[in-house]
């Protein structure tokens, strides 16, 4: 029976399997001189294949695979699609960048796909072991990806910082897992939730959750657990940063969702207030830090810290198990940040490196359309209307206000006003300042088309958000 179960499971798990096989194939091809140049194409092909398979094996009802190791349902599939899409764009846009830095080797793409697989496993894990392994698979791949860039002296520093801190976080999370296991005598997330709904919640149980969510907070880079993020953003190759900025966050959001949805622990004051206070703190710290930044990637990182704060606030607002707000926020933020970093990647795709914010000066003169895309994305990150980011912030503020946390809402939104300044600074550098900036390539029509995908989505969803809202509200409540 187990074997049969495993075989059906394998069928339903086809997309990930395709990815892992292709990852290994890519690794092999990368070593062969004459096939090396097809690595990129193969990566794209594998993602397309995986996502189309994912569509083919779309579960009609929720599925539990591999002896309750893995679940597949609407939510996991939804976020997986987002991951595939984002990953596709990231890979498409980073080819030239990698090429110049001689990073476009088989192992790079292979590790990237492994990182993706890790995240996909986190998304669909229903077992603490699988969860842990997924986390580690993606983290280990990411450490190595950061360290792979030998041309950049900062990359190994970023890698070691990420490595050490991330493992501390994992260890703390594991510590939480261990208590959780001890108390519930089970490693299955769904059983744990059943446990917390049937038993009285003891202090140790609460603390084990806190330990776990400190780990989650670390992965989201919520202040004060955010220190690694700017350094990693700055030190890693842009495609890796791009990955770190979005896909793990989606994965960890799903993790949080799985832990908290229908879990009585959410009703404990001491527990859900953590989200509130970390969220507020993160919004403040992120925005304040971002204000003083001179480097573009650090700025995006700190803005990410602020946005993670919003995600936590949204999670706080999910006391009534309404995770749609946070889900929408995560999705919208991931899209925006991917678009931002992809644009930076594209602009850096010549030997011209976009490091400082002042490097943006006069960009609109040479890359008019790209600047507009950049502006749209920035405005979305800032939460200005006409972009989907507005709804994201709107929903969070709305849910805070409906919980009568008006002061918090005001404080948080005033911090976004502070934050607006640094977004505007980039815009003004691009549009208002003169500058010599002919160091970028113009002709790459395909990349521009790809880059305009997300801004187009950002605006389209702003105009017609109802289907998305309906879908997300539907699957998450």
């Amino acid at each position, binding site marked *: 029976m187990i074997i049969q179960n495993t075989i059906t499971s394998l069928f339903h798990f086809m997309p990930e399997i395709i990815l892992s096989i292709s990852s290994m194939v890519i690794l092999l091809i990368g070593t062969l001189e004459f096939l090396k140049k097809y690595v990129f194409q193969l990566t794209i092909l594998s993602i397309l294949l995986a996502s189309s398979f994912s569509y083919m094996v779309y579960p009609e009802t929720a599925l539990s695979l591999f002896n309750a190791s893995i679940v597949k349902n609407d939510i996991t599939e939804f976020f997986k699609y987002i991951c595939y899409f984002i990953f596709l764009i990231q890979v498409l846009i980073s080819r030239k960048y990698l090429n110049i830095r001689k990073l476009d080797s088989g192992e790079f793409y292979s590790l990237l796909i492994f990182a993706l697989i890790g995240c996909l496993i986190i998304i669909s894990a229903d077992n603490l072991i699988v969860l842990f392994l997924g986390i580690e698979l993606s983290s280990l791949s990411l450490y190595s990806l950061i360290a792979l860039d030998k041309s950049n002296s900062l990359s190994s520093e970023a890698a070691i910082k990420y490595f050490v801190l991330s493992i501390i976080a994992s260890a703390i999370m594991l510590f939480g897992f261990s208590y959780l296991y001890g108390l519930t005598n089970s490693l299955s997330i769904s059983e744990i939730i059943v446990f917390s709904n049937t038993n009285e919640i003891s202090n140790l149980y609460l*603390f084990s959750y806190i330990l776990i969510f400190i780990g989650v907070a670390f992965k989201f880079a919520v202040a004060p657990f955010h220190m690694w993020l700017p350094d990693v953003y700055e030190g890693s190759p842009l495609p890796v940063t791009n990955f770190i900025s979005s896909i793990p966050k989606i994965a960890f959001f799903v993790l949080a969702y799985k832990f908290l949805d229908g879990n009585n622990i959410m009703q404990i004051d001491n527990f859900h207030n953590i989200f509130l206070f970390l969220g507020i703190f993160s919004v403040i710290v992120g925005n304040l830090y971002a204000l003083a930044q001179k480097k573009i990637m650090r700025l995006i990182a700190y803005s990410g810290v602020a946005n993670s704060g919003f995600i936590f606030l949204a999670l706080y607002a999910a006391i009534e198990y309404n995770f749609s707000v946070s889900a929408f926020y995560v999705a919208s933020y991931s899209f925006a940040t991917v678009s931002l970093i992809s644009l930076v990647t594209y602009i850096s795709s010549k030997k011209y490196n976009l490091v400082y914010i002042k490097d943006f000066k006069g960009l609109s003169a040479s890359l008019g359309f790209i600047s507009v895309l950049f502006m749209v994305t920035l405005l979305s990150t800032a939460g200005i209307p006409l972009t989907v980011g507005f709804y994201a912030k709107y929903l969070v503020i709305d849910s805070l206000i409906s919980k009568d946390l008006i002061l918090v809402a005001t404080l948080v939104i005033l911090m976004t006003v502070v934050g607006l300044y640094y977004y505007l600074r980039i815009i003004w550098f691009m549009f208002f300042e003169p500058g010599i900036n002919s160091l970028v390539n113009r002709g790459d029509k395909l990349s521009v088309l790809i880059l305009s995908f997300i801004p187009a989505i950002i605006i389209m969803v702003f105009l017609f958000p109802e289907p998305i809202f309906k879908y997300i509200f539907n699957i998450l409540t």
Partner: protein
Amino acid sequence: MELLLLFIPLLLLTSSLIVGLSSNNLGKISAGILSSTLVFVALIFSSIILFNIYKHEDQILYENFYNWISISSLEIGIGYLIDKFSAVMLFVVLLISFVVHVYSISYMSEEKDFKRFFSYIALFTFSMILLVMSNNLIQLFIGWEGVGLVSYLLIGFFYKKESAIKANLKAFLINRIGDMFFILGIAMIYALFDSFDYRTIFININKVDFENLDSYFGLSYLDLSCLFLFIGAMAKSAQIPLHVWLPDSMEGPTPISALIHAATMVTAGIFMVGRLSPLFELTDFTNSFILIIGSSTALFMGLIAIYENDIKRVIAYSTISQLGYMVAALGISAYTVSFFHLFTHAFFKALLFLCAGSIIMSLHHNQDITKMGGLRSKLPVTYICFLIGTLSIIGFPLTSGFFSKDLILEVMLDNNSTISFVSYNMLLIGALVTVIYSLRLLFIVFHGDFRGGKLSSIKEQSMIILLPLILLAIFSLFSGYLIKTFVDMPIYFYGLKDIHYEGMLPFISHGILSPASIALITGFFAAKILYKDERKFKMLNSAITIKLKSFIQTKYKFDELFIYSSNKTKKISSLLASKFDIGLIDGFIVNGLPKKINKLSQILKSLSSGYLYHYAFLFVFSIVVIFGIILARIL
């Protein structure tokens, strides 16, 4: 009739627009003639109206012909209220305007902006008519501001002259001070009666319980509102202390001084008070105030004229002084008496100004009387006209000024109160002063020797200049005989004031035997000795007189007061702008706050060291804090 009334302002407006906006195709002379013709037509219309009003006794034309604003209960219209009072005023305005139009054709012929000038004076006449015809306070105010505007434009007609553009700004600003109070007064009246219409206001005047109204600054509601209205009039009619603009306004072309700054616009204040007499009648305080202001203006402004050397300024100060007489008469509720003086004054003062204009033209724009003298032989017609004007202003028996001024003095004396007695004496001295400065002017300009170089090149102006002078001279001589009309003139809703008047002959004889005659004779001799014979007296060089003289020559420092306050305003303004607005609000709060946030962020940035162990420490520290808080809450 209504049609005629509608046509009068329209004609003038058309004239103004046509002349003002026409292209170069319309020549100067033809523009002048066109404009004059239109005014003339309007004049004819107005005389028809005047005639009709007098034919049908007690007929009052009151109608709205245009609804300007109507919001719910608020209705403001443009209309007319023609009784004898306004009909006469209408006629005077149009007459003087016509005369000045004709005069200007020649006077301004050299100017580049000839047509602009004509456009302005037509616009002025239009506004003035709007004011005179008004049947509500707002229309009055519109006309009021309109004439102020044109006055502003005309004083600054020579826009390259620094003094001219200073003067016009000053004139407008001081008028605006009055307007501010005027509109406040209007607002107060409106708040009381919920209407701007004279009729509604006057009808309801008896229904208002004045006792129970709010009082401000110890003044009753009505006192204050009338006071505010009168302050408006003070500015327009150049009463102390808001008179300072009028002497400066002489920077404008001379015909303008005649039309606006002597005959018509400056009397708008008098007209307004007369028009609102039912209201003013009820306020004792304001009446006393008016009386004091009027009589002091009459006396003290006359004094200044004695030492003034600019021919136009002398006449300007004389105008202020004469306006003082009119205002004083208003103060004792003798509205028609005041109006009578307005009527006669309009002619002789216009005459004087136009004569002055003629002289100035002849002397190639020299206005300094110390450079004149002995012009009698060269400018005979002007001399005669000027003489008539002077006689009229000094109240020489049987000239128009005699009647009107004596009537004021009589009425003043008849009014049994201390203030009016004091005022009477002031006005009497004022009469003496009037005689002195008027004759001084006459003597210095026309008698003696010419002091400005060669006399031979000077010659009399053309008939277009002279004819208006003659016309006005005739009016100046004979308009006084209409005294009965004014004594019997009813004012809308106010009716007649009981004035002691027993007929022409007794009035003349009484007038000749009055103290005013003594003033006249004393003044004549004083002026003759001092300015015609130019005798020197030791007494005049004594310390006191010199001090007095220099005090008067400072013009009582009113100019300085206004310059000081305007400079102070500018200083305060720049101080506020730099210290408060840019310094405090903008610098400290609007830019200061972001700067502080930025500083905070810089500090935070410098705090993060980049060391791995610090990161780890912060990590654990945060965990400890979180645990601590939660434990503290649990235990």
